[in-house]
């Protein structure tokens, strides 16, 4: 039985992770909660599958170490410098603002200041990876909110280090209030270690890695990477600083090296699993009884945590002028606690600043905030859409509704739609421009454009915009599915409309053709032809000759395109026709070129009227 006893641990861990995490994701609760609950269940409190010991948290801490190494690795100093204003500006506001708000509450309740500071900083951290993932899901990645969350995330990444460095220093200074000198000695050692890492790293790391890479044994490279991380972690631990800090520094040192990608790929799988292990360990260490014993305290913590952060973040969102639609996501995603918080609490507990009960309470509070996030998000969305609806309604009363009876409607106010609208306006024709991206509309309105908010894929919206009496509908949007939808709506409900559409590619062209649209332009075709003309000219062709060739190409291309329209259903016929088309195309162009050449040659050799003909 003792033979394979060592297997039990990894087996339980893996089983717990594999079961809990997918379930958590299915319930839309996020993987962090899954790990936490798994740890809770397998820990000594519930199922007791794992006896409590100190080895597990230490191994788990490796996960955090690796995570911070990768965080440091992915930091790009140049990019950070370029984004320094939002990062150090708003990012600091978020961290320090939330921490200050929480600290105020803590101090008001009478907790010692060192503890308050550390706990506030830990609670102020967010789960930025989750935040960015949710944003991407909601398609808000490239918006103001997305970039703001990114800046905050980067700042938190950077700030993790001073915070993590601060904890032991504060703990030490707190413990040895009388021996002020000991505190300074410890600080001196810490600084010294950091300096060693930085300088040693600059000088030794890259050459060492280069030498190892030359040996061309990939696994040794991975081993070297792990050695590096663990080595710096160990060094930091000796000096009394957090291991994570060392790993982070090592990561930053390597961030600009040529080995960055390779290190990332090599360590990524370890990171994921070890981080999961960390969360499981946190869950295991969660003292459920203690939490159950003071539900009020925990509830109060959650309320304080969410309340203060939401307040600060909502104010920030308003000050940063984040569009209303994006605010709920921004505020709530950053308000929830995160994995850095756990790291801080663990560190605080191991340094004796807080006890296990308090740690459990804090962990529970953060976990609860994570669990509440989906609920909060839906609530926030609803609130915001109500607010938006009211605002739009009031705006509608101020701004005149789209003039009814405008003969031309343009769906889409992006690059394509704008050019069409401007050209029409230059000819004294006003078109009704619709868009459903409120951010785009706001910025266009600032430039003096009249753009109306409306989702053209909705029938009632089209009706309100006057589609029933209009003559031309321009579909200038880039989303292929929506574009087809609008075309079909127009065909079915407004047959008097002539549709002029933008096609993103040939497939889109055929789909539009099938939806009854006849005036279709492939968005990149003519631009590409212009480029081709430039290239021909640069190879020495006369500009007009290049133009002639381009016009011929264009005509033949469109002929082939139209010929292939009825073949859309049959892929084999399509392929055959495409191949044939290309062949004929090239032959035709070659033939035309030859004919022209022959013509020129004949003209040059001269031709005289047949005055020696039969008539004379």
């Amino acid at each position: 039985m003792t033979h394979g006893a060592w297997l039990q641990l990894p087996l339980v861990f893996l089983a717990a992770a594999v079961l809990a995490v997918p379930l958590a994701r299915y319930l839309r609760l996020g993987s962090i909660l899954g790990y936490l609950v798994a740890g809770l269940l397998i820990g000594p409190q519930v199922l007791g599958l794992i006896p409590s010991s100190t080895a597990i948290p230490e191994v788990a801490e490796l996960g955090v170490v690796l995570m911070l190494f990768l965080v440091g690795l992915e930091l790009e100093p140049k990019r950070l410098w370029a984004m320094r204003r939002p990062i150090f500006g708003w990012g600091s506001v978020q961290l320090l603002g939330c921490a200050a708000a929480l600290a105020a509450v803590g101090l008001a309740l009478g907790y010692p200041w060192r503890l308050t500071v550390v706990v506030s900083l830990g609670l102020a951290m967010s789960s930025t990876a989750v935040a960015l993932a949710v944003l991407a899901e909601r398609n808000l990645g490239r918006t103001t909110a997305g970039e703001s969350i990114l800046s905050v995330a980067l700042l938190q990444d950077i700030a993790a280090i001073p915070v993590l460095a601060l904890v032991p220093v504060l703990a030490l200074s707190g413990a040895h209030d009388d021996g002020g000198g000991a505190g300074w000695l410890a600080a001196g050692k810490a600084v010294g270690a950091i300096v060693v890492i930085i300088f040693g790293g600059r000088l030794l790391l890259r050459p060492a890695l280069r030498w190892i890479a030359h040996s061309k044994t990939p696994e040794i490279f991975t081993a070297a990477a792990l050695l590096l991380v663990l080595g710096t972690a160990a060094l930091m631990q000796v000096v009394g600083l957090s291991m994570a800090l060392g790993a982070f520094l090592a990561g930053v040192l390597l961030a600009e090296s040529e080995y960055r990608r390779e290190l990332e790929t090599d360590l990524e799988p370890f990171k994921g699993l070890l981080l999961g292990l960390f969360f499981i360990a946190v869950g295991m260490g969660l003292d459920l009884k203690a939490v159950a014993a003071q539900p009020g305290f925990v509830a109060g913590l959650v309320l304080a945590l969410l309340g203060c952060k939401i307040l600060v973040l909502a104010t920030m969102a308003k000050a940063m002028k984040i569009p209303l639609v994006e605010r709920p996501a921004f505020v709530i995603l950053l308000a929830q606690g995160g994995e850095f918080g756990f790291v801080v609490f663990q560190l605080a507990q191991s340094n004796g600043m807080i006890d296990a009960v308090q740690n459990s309470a804090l962990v529970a509070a953060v976990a609860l905030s994570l669990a509440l996030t989906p609920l909060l998000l839906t609530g926030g969305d609803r609130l915001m859409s109500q607010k938006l609806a009211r605002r739009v309604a009031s705006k509608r009363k101020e701004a005149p509704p789209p003039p009814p009876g405008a003969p031309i409607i343009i769906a889409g106010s992006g690059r394509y739609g704008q050019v069409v609208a401007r050209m029409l306006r230059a000819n004294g024709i006003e078109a009704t421009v619709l868009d459903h991206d409120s951010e785009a509309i706001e910025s266009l309105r600032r430039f003096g454009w009249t753009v109306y908010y409306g989702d053209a894929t909705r029938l009632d919206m089209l009706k309100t915009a006057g589609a029933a009496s209009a003559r031309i509908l321009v579909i200038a949007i880039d989303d292929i599915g929506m574009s087809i939808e609008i075309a079909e709506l127009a065909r079915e409900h407004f047959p008097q409309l002539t549709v002029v559409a933008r096609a993103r590619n040939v497939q889109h062209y055929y789909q539009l053709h099938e939806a009854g649209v006849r005036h279709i332009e492939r968005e990149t075709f003519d631009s590409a032809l212009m480029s081709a003309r430039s290239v021909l000219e640069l190879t020495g062709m006369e500009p007009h000759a290049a133009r002639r060739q381009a016009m011929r190409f264009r005509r033949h291309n469109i002929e082939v395109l139209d010929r292939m329209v009825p073949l859309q259903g049959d892929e084999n016929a399509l392929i055959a026709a495409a191949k044939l088309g290309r062949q004929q195309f090239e032959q035709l162009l070659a033939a035309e070129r030859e004919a022209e050449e022959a013509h020129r040659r004949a003209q040059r050799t001269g031709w005289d009227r047949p005055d020696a003909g039969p008539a004379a």
Partner: protein
Amino acid sequence: MPDSSPRDILVLAAHPDLARSHATRTVLDALRASPAAGRVELRDLYRLYPDFHIHIDAEQHALEAARLVIMLHPIYWYSMPALQKLWLDEVPRLGWAYGPGGTALHGKDFWLVASTGGGAEAYAPGGHNHHAIEEFLLPYLQSARTCGMNYLPPQILHGAHRATDAEITAHAELFVKRLEHYPAWCENLAAPPVGDEDDVALDERPALFSTIGGAE
């Protein structure tokens, strides 16, 4: 053999700004409304080729199918509008319309229907333009001859800017009447001889047409 297809008249209309045209547009409207429209293939060059990329094959086919080729345009700088000139440069090709083997247009009739800004009196040796209109139209004549076509007497509306509606309408109606009675009227007309008399070989011309200048 003469072409017996129903659309045996080809009208090449060329006006760069038809919306602001008066004379040319009136003629076109009259043409579309007349019973002769059934035998007319109308090609509005500026509408067909707004990008000035002429479809040579299509134009040559249209020419082949026609017996009478009409050019309808305002006279710009004593000549034709640019797109019509481009057409002339590109469509009748060596070896197709003229030169060795170039007999595609032989025997067809060519007729210019145009409008000028200057009045009839300006187109005289003592007048503003110092020459008769026929002298400015020599390129048309010679081009037609080079392709072996019969150059019919042109129908010109002078002083189109100052012309009254009645005059323009009369011009258009005369045009339409001649379309309806083609080819009867041109067989009796003799175009005044201009310049030297090099003709295309007589035996290449169909017997139905009277000879120009009386040559046999």
